[in-house]
C-alpha cells in the first residue's frame, strides 16, 4: 500500500529540476506543462494516497516508509523517510491542491515574464520542500523541508532580481527564518539528547509510555524546553512576534508566491509543527501558555496594523500574520485539530484573497496602492465576487469556511479557560472583518481614483487566472463543511475525528462538557462581531467616505503608530542590525583584527627588522672595536663561568 508515496514530493522536484536545467531552452509552453503538470500529478498522487488512508481502518492510518539512511552517526540516525498519517494527509492535500491551483493561476499571471522557467522551477521546488516538511518522519527530515521552504521563499521573494527591495526582502526573510531555525535545530538536539532518537514515532512513544519520566509539566522542564526551542522555529517560520517582520516585506515577491508560500502553506508550517509535536506541547503548560500568548498577541497586533495599510498585499500580509496567530492560539489551548482546520480553511480563502489581489494588480498594471483604486467591480466582476466570498469567509460569516474554523478556535479558548484570549480573539475577529471589507470597498467600490491611462487597459483577468479564483471561492465556501461542529446536530466533528489518530499521543487535560446551546451562543457572538466590523467598514468607506480621513486626522498619533507598524522595523535596524554592522566593521575588523591581532603578528616581524637594524651597527667596521669585543667577550665568559662555579 502506498508504494507511490515518494512520488508526491519527487514529482515536483523532478519538475523543478527539469525546468531549472532545461526550461530556458525548451520554451514557455514546455515549462507550463512541466510545472503545472508535476504539481497536478502530485495532487492526484496525494489525493490517491489520502483516499487510501481514509479507506484504511483508523488505527492503521499511519504509513511510514523509509528509503535509505541519510545521516547515521552513532545513535544520531536520520532516515530518508516519508510519513503519511491523517495530519500529513490533510497537509499534502492542501499543499498540492492549493499549490496546483496557484500554479495554474501563475500561467496567466507570469505570462511573458523573462524568468518564467525560473519561476516555475522555484515554485515546484517549493512544493517539494513543503511536502518533505509535512511528510517528514523525523525531526531532521522536517528540518530539511523547514529550511528548504525557507530557501524557496528566499528565491521567490527575490524573484524580481532588478529590485533592490526584493533582494532585501528575500534576504531578510531568510535570515529571520534562520534565527528561528537555530532555535528549532537546538530543540531537535535537545530531543535527541533526551530521547536518543530523532524519529517522531519513537520520541512520542517514549513520552506517552513513560508518564513518570515525562510528566505533564507545570513548571519549566525538559519537555517545556524542547517545546519552546521548537517554537522559536515556528515563530520564525510562521511570522509571529517578534520575528514576524519578514512577512510583510515578503510581498515583494510575485503575487502567486505570496498566495502559495506566504499565505497558504509555508507560513503555516509552524502551526503544523506544533500540532505534530502535540505530545510534547500538550505536556507543558508553560509552553502552551507561551504559544497562546504569542499567538493572540500577534493576532491582535497584526490586525491593528492591517487597519491602516494602503498596500493591498500588505494588508493581506498582516492579515495572514494575524490569522496565523489564531492558529497558534488553537494549538495553545490544545485545540490542535481546530488549528489545522483553520490552517486548511485559511489556505483556501487567503490564497483566494491573494490571487484576487493579484488579479486586481494585474488588471491595474502593477498598481498595489488601495488609495489609487476604486470602483473596480465593473471592470473585474469575477474577481470582485470571489474576493467578496473570501472576505466573508475570513470574517467568519456563516456558513463560509472561515466561520467554522475560527469559531471552533474561539470557543476552544473559552472552554479551555482562557476568557481573555477569547475576548481578544473576538475583538480581533471584528478588526479582521473591518480591514478586509475596508480593502474590498476601497478596491471595488466608490469612485475611481486612477487615471485614464490605467482605465484604458483595465480588464478582467484571463481564464487561467479566474478559474483558479472560482475553484478557491468554492473551496472557501464549502471547505468548512468537513468539520461541522457538534452543536449543529449533524454528528461529531468529522475533521477532528479524522485527525485524532495522529494526535493520539497528545496529553488530554480534563475538560468539562459545555452544552451545545452555549456553543451556539458563542457562534452567534462571533458572527455578530464580524458583522459589526463589516458595517463599520461600509460606513467609513462606502457610506461616508470622509469619515476614514477624519478619524485618521483626529487620532493622528495612534494612526501613525499603526501606519508605521509600531516602528518595529526601525527599532530592529537601529538597535540590532546597524550596531552589529558598525561594530563588526570598525571594532572587530579594523580595530581588533587588523589592529591588534595582525598588528601583533606584523609587530613581531617588524621587531626582528628593528633588532637587525640596531645590532648591525655594532658591526662598525673598526678593527679596534672588534678587538674590544673579543676582549669583552673573554671577560664576560670568565665572569659567567666564575658566577657559575660560585
Amino acid at each position, binding site marked *: 500500500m502506498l508504494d507511490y508515496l515518494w512520488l508526491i514530493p519527487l514529482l515536483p522536484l523532478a519538475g523543478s529540476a527539469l525546468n531549472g536545467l532545461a526550461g530556458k531552452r525548451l520554451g514557455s509552453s514546455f515549462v507550463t506543462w512541466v510545472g503545472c503538470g508535476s504539481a497536478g500529478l502530485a495532487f492526484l498522487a496525494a489525493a490517491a494516497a489520502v483516499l487510501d488512508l481514509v479507506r484504511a481502518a483508523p488505527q492503521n492510518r499511519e504509513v511510514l516508509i523509509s528509503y535509505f539512511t541519510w545521516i547515521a552517526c552513532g545513535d544520531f540516525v536520520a532516515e530518508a523517510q516519508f510519513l503519511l498519517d491523517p495530519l500529513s494527509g490533510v497537509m499534502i492535500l492542501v499543499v498540492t491542491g492549493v499549490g496546483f491551483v496557484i500554479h495554474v493561476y501563475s500561467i496567466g499571471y507570469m505570462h511573458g515574464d523573462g524568468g518564467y522557467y525560473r519561476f516555475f522551477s522555484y515554485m515546484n521546488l517549493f512544493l517539494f520542500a513543503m511536502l518533505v516538511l509535512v511528510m517528514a518522519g523525523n525531526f531532521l527530515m522536517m528540518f530539511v523541508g523547514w529550511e528548504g521552504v525557507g530557501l524557496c521563499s528566499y528565491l521567490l521573494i527575490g524573484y524580481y532580481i532588478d529590485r533592490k527591495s526584493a533582494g532585501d526582502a528575500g534576504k531578510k526573510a531568510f535570515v529571520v527564518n534562520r534565527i528561528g531555525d537555530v532555535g528549532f*535545530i537546538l530543540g531537535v538536539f535537545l530531543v535527541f539528547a533526551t530521547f536518543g532518537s530523532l524519529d517522531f514515532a519513537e520520541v512520542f512513544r517514549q513520552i506517552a509510555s513513560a508518564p513518570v519520566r515525562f510528566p505533564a509539566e507545570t513548571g519549566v522542564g525538559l519537555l517545556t524546553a524542547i517545546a519552546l526551542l521548537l517554537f522559536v522555529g515556528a515563530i520564525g517560520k510562521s511570522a509571529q512576534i517578534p520575528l514576524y517582520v519578514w512577512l510583510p516585506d515578503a510581498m515583494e515577491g510575485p503575487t502567486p508566491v505570496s498566495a502559495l508560500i506566504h499565505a497558504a502553506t509555508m507560513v503555516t508550517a509552524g502551526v503544523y509543527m506544533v500540532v505534530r509535536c502535540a505530545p510534547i506541547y500538550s505536556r507543558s503548560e508553560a509552553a502552551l501558555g507561551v504559544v497562546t500568548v504569542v499567538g493572540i498577541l500577534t493576532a491582535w497586533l497584526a490586525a491593528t496594523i492591517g487597519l491602516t495599510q494602503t498596500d493591498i498585499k500588505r494588508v493581506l500580509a498582516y492579515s495572514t500574520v494575524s490569522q496565523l496567530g489564531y492558529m497558534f492560539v488553537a494549538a495553545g489551548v490544545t485545540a490542535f485539530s481546530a488549528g489545522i482546520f483553520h490552517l486548511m480553511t485559511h489556505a483556501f480563502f487567503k490564497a483566494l484573497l491573494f490571487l484576487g489581489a493579484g488579479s486586481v494588480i494585474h488588471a491595474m498594471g502593477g498598481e498595489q496602492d488601495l488609495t489609487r483604486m476604486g470602483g473596480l467591480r465593473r471592470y473585474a466582476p469575477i474577481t470582485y465576487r470571489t474576493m467578496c466570498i473570501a472576505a466573508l469567509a475570513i470574517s467568519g460569516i456563516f456558513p463560509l469556511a472561515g466561520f467554522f474554523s475560527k469559531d471552533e478556535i474561539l470557543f476552544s479558548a473559552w472552554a479551555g479557560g482562557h476568557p481573555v484570549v477569547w475576548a481578544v480573539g473576538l475583538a480581533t475577529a471584528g478588526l479582521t472583518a473591518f480591514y478586509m471589507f475596508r480593502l474590498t470597498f476601497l478596491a471595488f467600490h466608490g469612485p475611481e481614483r486612477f487615471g485614464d491611462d490605467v482605465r484604458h487597459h483595465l480588464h478582467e483577468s484571463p481564464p487561467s487566472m479566474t478559474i483558479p479564483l472560482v475553484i478557491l471561492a468554492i473551496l472557501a465556501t464549502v471547505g468548512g463543511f468537513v468539520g461541522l461542529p457538534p452543536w449543529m446536530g449533524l454528528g461529531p466533528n468529522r475533521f477532528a475525528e479524522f485527525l485524532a489518530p495522529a494526535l493520539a499521543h497528545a496529553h488530554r487535560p480534563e475538560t468539562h462538557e459545555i452544552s451545545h446551546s452555549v456553543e451556539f451562543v458563542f457562534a452567534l457572538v462571533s458572527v455578530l462581531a464580524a458583522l459589526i466590523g463589516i458595517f463599520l467598514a461600509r460606513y467609513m468607506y462606502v457610506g461616508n467616505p470622509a469619515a476614514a480621513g477624519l478619524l485618521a486626522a483626529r487620532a493622528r498619533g495612534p494612526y501613525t503608530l499603526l501606519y508605521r507598524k509600531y516602528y518595529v522595523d526601525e527599532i530592529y535596524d537601529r538597535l540590532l542590525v546597524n550596531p552589529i554592522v558598525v561594530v563588526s566593521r570598525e571594532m572587530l575588523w579594523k580595530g581588533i583584527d587588523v589592529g591588534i591581532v595582525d598588528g601583533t603578528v606584523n609587530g613581531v616581524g617588524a621587531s626582528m627588522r628593528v633588532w637587525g637594524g640596531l645590532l648591525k651597527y655594532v658591526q662598525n667596521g673598526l678593527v679596534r672595536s672588534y678587538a674590544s669585543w673579543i676582549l669583552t667577550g673573554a671577560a664576560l665568559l670568565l665572569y659567567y663561568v666564575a658566577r657559575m662555579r660560585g
Partner: protein
Amino acid sequence: MQITHILSWLTYLPAALAAALVFFPGGSARALKWFAVLGSTGVFLLSLYPVYHFDPGYGGMQFVEESAWIQAGGYSISHHLGIDGISLFLVALTTFLTPLALLASWNSIAQRLKGFLICMLLLETGMVGVFCALDLVLFYVFWEVMLIPMYFLIGIWGGEHRIYAAVKFILYTMVGSLLMLVAIIYLFLANGGTTFDLLAVYQNLESGRLVLSHRAEFWLFMAFLIAFAIKVPIFPFHTWLPDAHVEAPTAGSVILAGVLLKMGTYGLLRFCLPLFPAAAVAAAPYLSVLGLVGIVYGALVAMVQPDLKKLVAYSSVSHMGLIIVGMFAFTLQGLEGATMQMLNHGLSTGALFLLVGMIYDRRHTRMIANFGGLAHNSPVLAAFFLVVTLSSIGLPGLNGFVGEVLALVGTFLRNRTYAAIAATGMILGAVYMLWMYQRVFLGKVTDPANAAMGDIRSRDRAVLIPIVIMMLWMGVYSAPFLRRMDASLELVQKRVHDARAPEGGYQVRQLKTPAIRKSDGR
C-alpha cells in the same frame, strides 16, 4: 584488481608528473595543461581505489605500507603510509580538487605556466603525503615540503601584495611547525628513542609502556597544537589567512582553503587528541571558546569585508571554528561532524574561490562594491554561485548541513551553551553570504563593465559540475561517507575517553619521568 602500494602511488605520482613536466619537450602551453590536468585526473581516479576498497568496519590503518627509510645513528625513520576513516576522504578531496583547480587556471595563468603546474603537482604530493604519513618525521617532512610550492604559488602568481602574503604565510606556518618538530623529537625520545612510528606510539600509550608526565603531555600538546592552530587557523592565529587567500591565485586559494586548512584539523585529530588525550581534555574548554570566538568573530568580520576573497577567507575562520568546537566536544557526533565538515568546507569554500576566480578573470576586480546585477548577464554563474553559497551556509540537502548538524549536536551533547553560541554561526553565515550574493548578483546592472561580462563557458562548468554533484551527493546520501569514518573516529573517541575518569572529571596521569637524561634546568 589488486593495487599494491596504492598510497605510494597516490603520493608520488603527482611528483613524478611534475618531474616529467620539467623535461616536457616543447613549449606548447596547451599540451602542458592537458598533461597536468589529465595526469592529476588520473591520480584522482586512482584515489577512488582506496575509497572503494576501504573496510568501514575497521578503525585502524588500511592500505598500510611500511619500509625503512633512514636507519642511522640510532634513529629509525620509516616510510610508513596508511589511511583510516579520517584521512581517506581527505586524500580523495585533495586529488579531487587538484585537477579542478588546474582546470580553473586554464587561462588565468599566462606566464611561467610550467612552473605553476609543477608547483601544483608538488603541492598535491605534499598534501597527500601529509594525510597518509604514519611516521612522525615523515609527516613532518610532507608538512614542511608542501609549504615551498605554496609559497611559490602565492609569491609568483599572486596579486599585488603577493610577496608580503607569501612571506607571512611561510613564516607564520613555520613558527608553529618547528615547535612541533621539537615536540616530535621529545616524544620519540620519551618513547624509548627507537622509532618515530606513530602507530607504535599509539600502542605504547595504550599499553602503558609510554607514560608521559602531566607536564610533558601538556607541553607536547601545546607544541603540536600551535602548529595545527596556525594552520586551521584558530583565532587569534588567523591573520595570515586573509592575506594569503587574497593574494594567492585562484588555484592556490582553492587548495589553500580546500585542503591546507584541513591539515590543521586533521593534525589535531591524528596527533593532539589520541597522543595527548588528558591534555586535550583539559584544554578542551579553552579551545572550544576559541572556536566559538572564531565562529562569531569570523562571521562578523566576514560580513563587513569589501573584497570577495577576504569575505570567503574570514568565512573560513568561522567554519573552521565550528570544526574545532565539534572536535573538542569529544563526542562521536562532534568528531564525525568535524571530519565531515572538513570535507564540506573543502568543497564549498574551494568552489567559492573557484567562482570568485572566474569572476575575477572576467572583471579583474574582486571588490563587492564594483558588482551588482551579475545574475542578468551571467545566470549560469549566478546559479552555481547560489548553490555553493547555500552549501556554505549549511542548507539541508547539501553537504554543508550534514557536517554542521553533526558537529552542533555533538557539541550540544557536551555543552549546551557552546552549541547555542555555535549555532549562531548558522544565522551569521546566512547574513554575510546572502548579503554578498545580493550585492554581487542581484539588483540592477549599474556598471556597464558588469553588463559586458560574459557568462561562464563549458570549461568552467566542467569544473563546477563535479563539485555540485558531490555537494548534492554528500548532502542527500551522506551515510556512505559517515560509515567509513565511524570506526576510526570511535577509536579516537575511545582514546580520549580513556584519559578521563568515569565520572567525567579529568584524571591526572601518574607522574613519571620520561626517558630524558637531563633536564634543562639551568
